[in-house]
């Protein structure tokens, strides 16, 4: 049973944490995440969520409080964005290393400088190797669904990895859409109550957590995290399969859209995927064999699945919404290139700081690939021609 509700991505994320019945919330406002902090406060005040709300003084404390609370044996919730995520950086590693499966919505927004309030993926990409799983949503419905899938996976004893559910700032966070909101009882049947499978603070069974660890053991603890990421592939797929049984909606680590017979495919992440699919439909109607491969799980990175899905595709492009400064191509393209070694993979960078990745941009990228205009270098697909002279002081 579910109810159809008009929700934006932030609303869907708030309901996701509410349905997970987080017992402690520590939240700090930041555009465009603030409505999540506000909505969770509303739930606590109106009594619909039995939780303690800790009005922290920073994102660093938000994550620290969440870690502390969850170590006592309850689910703890927080959410952030951009520089807030960057401020959390130090303690994100604590959650990961202590194997505390916190699930956190991350409303993607560019990092400063220059200041911007708008969407790109640099905030989450800067955290991609820190021991958190990362799932990227395409729609408000996906935000809610991926949060539930994230809890099921993250808390599984074979995984125990904290998880970011990434939603594009404004494009998803503030765009209203119809969302099927499940009943609490249905969610409860999908998601068992929280149990600590690893470390726990309890005076009845004392242990000291996170002490100085000798070189003789550190590598092994990191290795355990790596094994957890390996395990996460199967556990995610199990959770997604169960999710389909319970809620009827289908998810997978990647979504191949019109890739079977495609000559050219562009790999996407997040909300841009919808635009990409729209352009695929349009160009297919013109007889052009193009497709979109959306990555839902960026961490763990489904290299094998991508390789399989693109086995018969001659030319691949990757649309990175993150500059990947100093690298040959953007962060997603770097990994797709590695997965498809030998195949030509054109890296594109676009859509930074809220610049719309429009149908025109996708069409341009597809045509470039169809015309075999490929370079080893990354193509800044939507950069202005006057890039090097804007705001020039003479």
């Amino acid at each position: 049973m579910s109810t159809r509700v008009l929700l934006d991505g932030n609303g869907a994320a708030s309901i996701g944490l509410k349905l997970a019945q987080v017992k402690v919330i520590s939240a700090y406002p930041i555009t465009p995440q603030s409505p999540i902090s506000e909505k969770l406060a509303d739930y606590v005040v109106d009594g619909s969520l039995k939780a303690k709300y800790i009005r922290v003084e920073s994102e660093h404390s938000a994550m620290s409080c969440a870690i502390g609370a969850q170590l006592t044996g309850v689910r703890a919730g927080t959410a952030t964005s951009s520089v807030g995520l960057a401020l959390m950086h130090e303690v994100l590693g604590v959650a990961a290393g202590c194997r505390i499966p916190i699930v956190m919505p991350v409303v993607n927004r560019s990092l400063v400088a220059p200041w911007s309030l708008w969407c790109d993926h640099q905030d989450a990409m800067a955290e991609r190797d820190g021991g958190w799983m990362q799932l990227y949503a395409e729609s408000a419905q996906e935000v809610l669904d991926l949060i539930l899938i994230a809890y099921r996976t993250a808390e599984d004893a074979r995984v125990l990895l904290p998880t970011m559910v990434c939603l594009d700032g404004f494009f998803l966070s503030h765009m209203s859409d119809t969302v099927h909101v499940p009943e609490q009882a249905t969610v409860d049947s999908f998601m068992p109550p929280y149990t600590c499978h690893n470390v726990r603070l309890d005076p009845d069974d004392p242990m000291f957590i996170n002490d100085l660890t000798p070189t003789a053991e550190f590598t092994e603890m990191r290795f355990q995290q790596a094994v957890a990421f390996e395990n996460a592939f199967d556990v995610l797929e199990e959770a997604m399969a169960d999710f389909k049984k319970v809620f009827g909606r289908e998810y997978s680590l990647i979504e191949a859209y019109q890739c079977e017979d495609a000559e050219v495919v562009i790999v996407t992440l997040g909300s841009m995927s919808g635009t990409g699919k729209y352009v695929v439909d349009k160009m297919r109607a013109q007889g052009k064999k193009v497709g979109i491969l959306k990555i839902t799980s960026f961490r763990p990175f489904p290299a094998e699945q991508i390789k399989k899905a693109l086995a018969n595709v001659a030319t691949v492009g990757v649309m990175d919404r993150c500059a990947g400064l100093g690298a040959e191509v953007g962060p997603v393209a770097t990994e797709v290139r590695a997965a498809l070694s030998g195949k030509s993979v054109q890296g594109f960078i676009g859509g930074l700081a809220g610049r719309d990745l429009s149908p025109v941009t996708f069409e341009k990228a597809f045509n470039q690939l169809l015309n075999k205009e490929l370079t080893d270098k990354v193509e800044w697909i939507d950069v202005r021609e006057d890039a090097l002279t804007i705001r020039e002081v003479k």
Partner: protein
Amino acid sequence: MLTMKSDAKGLVANGVSFCHGCGLELAARIVLDVLGPNTVIVVPPGCAAMLSGYGNETVTKIPGFQGNLENTAAYAAGIKAGFEMQGRSDVQVLGFAGDGATVDIGLQALSGALERGDKILYICYDNEAYMNTGIQGSGSTPLNCWTTTTPGGKSVYRKDMVGIVAAHKIPYVATASVGYVDDLRKKVEKAKAATAEGPAYLHIHIPCPTGWGNKPETSIEVAKLAVQSLCWPLYEIVNGDEYKLTVAVSKPKEVAEYIKLQKRFAGASAEEIAELQQGVEQEYARLLKRIG
């Protein structure tokens, strides 16, 4: 499997790797003795991390978590909230951090927890510098004092951390010293009781032979002299404005007498020592005014 290697009476085992004459070890034993086993301790990386242990061994018989340098109060607040939501408000949550982790890098998180009224006990053990990293100056290092980052003597006054905490109007704030163990015990008891209402804060003066250059066997004497010379007055503040001296000093000793047992003031000139004396007297006069 847990193997108990020490039958120490208290909650801290024997053989902790603190330095000789460390005041912190004594303070930790007393604090945990008063608080009892229904306590969770949070320590940052610093000297108190000796309590965390190393590898698969620890010396602390209560649950503990070693956090980061700047967020002891935030971890403690989260832990307390987690217990509260499970009907276990009786679990005492103790943040136990040094001066660097409190008056410098941890000030923001602590202020947040105090302002929110989180029911935690926060104890700053103050050895007046970053001792675990090798005696670097902190916001709590006294005027004209040598550290490795104030090689010419610190040119500014220390922060009035207790005043900063008191400004949050929390139920209980007190200074304490390992030189006055009875006073310390009473204050830990009062602080523990106060956490039923809101945050409590203790600031314990801890001589550090390694950083101060006093002989290890003089640590208690040095701690007493700090109080007797008015460098470290012992007082408490209830609800932000009820000040009370807990150890009266009828005939104050010279600051010079306190510092002569330590090498860290050896570079201070006669003028600088006089300046130190004057600063201490001014601060004490201000404190007496508050007591009224």
